[in-house]
């Protein structure tokens, strides 16, 4: 009997925060969960719309153009801020990329020194600077020991406060600011990162980690148990080879731990 497990995903402002292929995270999350016979219902949530933090399992937000990020700002502060804080308290998962990540920090200082307040789920701030930090990047997610790969493309430099946990440590590339080897931020099950690529398809073990967290929260069962019970074996050839194809990162991606 397929799809006995159901998860609910929210994609925040997909028509605005969508220019770097971050929709791929949502598509792949649903695809991958489907391989474990877990059904994911994705709902787009845009300006003027809310969601129920109790029902949602995972929330996605991507990066947008600077001008367009301002379009959602008021709504984000008026409606989404409260719901996201509630979701955080309920141990829900959030994956925020680039511009979305910056909104979850304390504030963003623009090139003309204006300060745009964030929602302080991650303690730290971002400063607009040139040149943009672009290129392939490899990091390590220390909670699982897995190597995460992606492409970064950001003008903002993010500096985390001392007590704020980063998401990953940079192995090769810039990360939050090109200085302190931190990449992204993690508070509870909320993740922020600069990695596009899209992130989840090439980092399927991290995608599994997120699915595992979600089913444990909702059904108190681990993904490993689901796979074992159903006798599910996933062919990851494309995923593994896509990692190996990335120029300059082969040293990291050919390691046995993915």
């Amino acid at each position: 009997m397929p799809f006995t497990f159901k998860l609910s995903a929210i994609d925040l402002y997909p028509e605005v925060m969508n220019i770097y292929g971050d929709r791929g995270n949502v598509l792949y999350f649903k695809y991958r969960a489907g391989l474990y016979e877990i059904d994911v219902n994705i709902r787009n949530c845009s300006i003027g719309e809310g969601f129920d933090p109790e029902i949602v399992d995972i929330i996605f937000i991507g990066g947008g153009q600077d001008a367009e990020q301002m379009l959602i700002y008021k709504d984000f502060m008026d409606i989404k801020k409260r719901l996201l804080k509630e979701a955080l308290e309920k141990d829900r998962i959030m994956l925020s990329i680039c511009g979305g990540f910056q909104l979850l920090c304390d504030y963003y200082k623009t090139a003309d020194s204006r300060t745009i307040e964030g929602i302080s789920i991650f303690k730290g701030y971002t400063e607009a600077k040139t040149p943009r930090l672009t290129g392939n990047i490899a990091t390590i997610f220390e909670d699982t020991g897995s190597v995460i790969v992606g492409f970064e493309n950001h003008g903002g430099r993010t500096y985390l406060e001392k007590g704020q946990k980063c998401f990953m440590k940079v192995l090769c590339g810039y990360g939050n600011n090109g200085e302190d080897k931190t990449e992204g931020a993690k508070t509870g099950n909320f993740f922020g990162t600069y990695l596009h690529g899209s992130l989840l398809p090439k980092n399927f073990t991290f995608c599994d980690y997120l699915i595992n967290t979600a089913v444990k929260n909702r059904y108190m069962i681990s993904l490993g148990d689901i796979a074992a019970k159903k006798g599910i074996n996933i062919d990851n050839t494309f995923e593994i080879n896509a990692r190996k194809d990335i120029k300059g990162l082969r040293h990291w991606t050919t390691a046995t731990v993915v």
Partner: protein
Amino acid sequence: MFLKLKNNLEILFFRSAKVLLNVVFRRQGDVLPAHILKKMDKNIFDEFARDVSSYDIPRIIITGTNGKTTTANLIGSAFRISGKKICFNANGANMPNGVFGAVIGCYSLNGKFIPELVLLESDEKVFPYIAAKIKPDTIVVTNFFRDQLDRYGEVNITVHNIKRVIKDILPAAFLILPADEPLASFIGYGLKNPRLYYGFKKDIKKGNDNDNDNDGSLRRSDMLNDAVSCPNCGNILTCEENYAGVSLKYSCKVCGYKNSAPDILAFHCGDEKICFDLKDLPRTFSFKRALSGEYNISNYMAAFCVLKHYGLSNETVIFAFENYITKFGRSYKKVINGIKINIDLVKNPAGFNGVLGKIAFKENPVNVLLAFSDRDADGRDVSWIWDTNFEKFVKKFNRVVITGLRPYDMALRLKTAGINSDNITVVYGIKKALRKIIELASKDNAEVFILPTYTELLRLKKYIR
């Protein structure tokens, strides 16, 4: 008229170097000699630009994200048919070296500019640099979509830079703009320049390429991928009707920015025939298309506007449109061993969706060869394939071969979209991959689409021609 002896020597150098590259190295050879000359003489482009703009001849520049090369070549071929000698970077070398290489190459050794018309395709990012020097009297802007964000940054900034330079060009240039694409259309907004807008007729829709899957009720612009914010005031642009990647009806509820009324309207009028309704001319213009793909109708319209602006007869334009020989990688068709092959360059989500739209019109599923790389000229970030809507066209894919430097990223994208991974084969090396897709197509008796990124297209050229 302004050239000095130094410039004559530069012409001599350019022409000799070009012959050497053409004959000995079999390369096209506009870019490299121009590059060397620019290194030796930093004022060279200014001097030749000043000289060219002193001649009383038409100077036309085509820019935008997609469709530049095809639009420029449609225009170029009609002018040639009409008997005009033209200066044209026909090979698509649209950066400053390519553009000025084409210009310098049109001078006689004694410093006289020979052509009767200048037709230049310009990359959108360098358009301000080129247009400020050449001072075009006609400018075509095809569209603006996000393209290679790692190299070019955000598209809104490009649009504003182009608009600023057009405002400064005197006398005011004649503008040819799409009515249905909010960013390119915005180039004319608030400017006094004479202009023509082209657009699709409302009843253009047919077949299964209707982007509006819902009831058509008012909604946010979730199909307006690249222009969600109003280019005029920054608020949300609402889109009510989409077709083939353009927006038949959009508006900003805050400042009122919306589609301009088109002067030329295109629609389908029978078997492979396209008709134009003209606002000011009494009768409809029609022709049998040589270029497939709905996006090429826009290119035809833009070219038509230019050609009529310069007074070419309908007969000449129709002849040029119907007998257009496609450029390699732009709706290029060929038959190999009895197999129909289509070659289309893919470089950004908007263009890729346009090409996939063509596959949607095919009765039977097709075999596809994707050559996908991340060299600098392709864009180093491969994320954009996740913004391409493969999900909508999954049923039209039969078997897929993938090559290039990042084949497994594409394989993963297609697998996620729902294409059975047993039908996806990765083959490193374009020559081998080409052999494989033809072998599969012979077995399946399927039509083939070859979709390479830019650097792979150049490689492919060595094996198909």
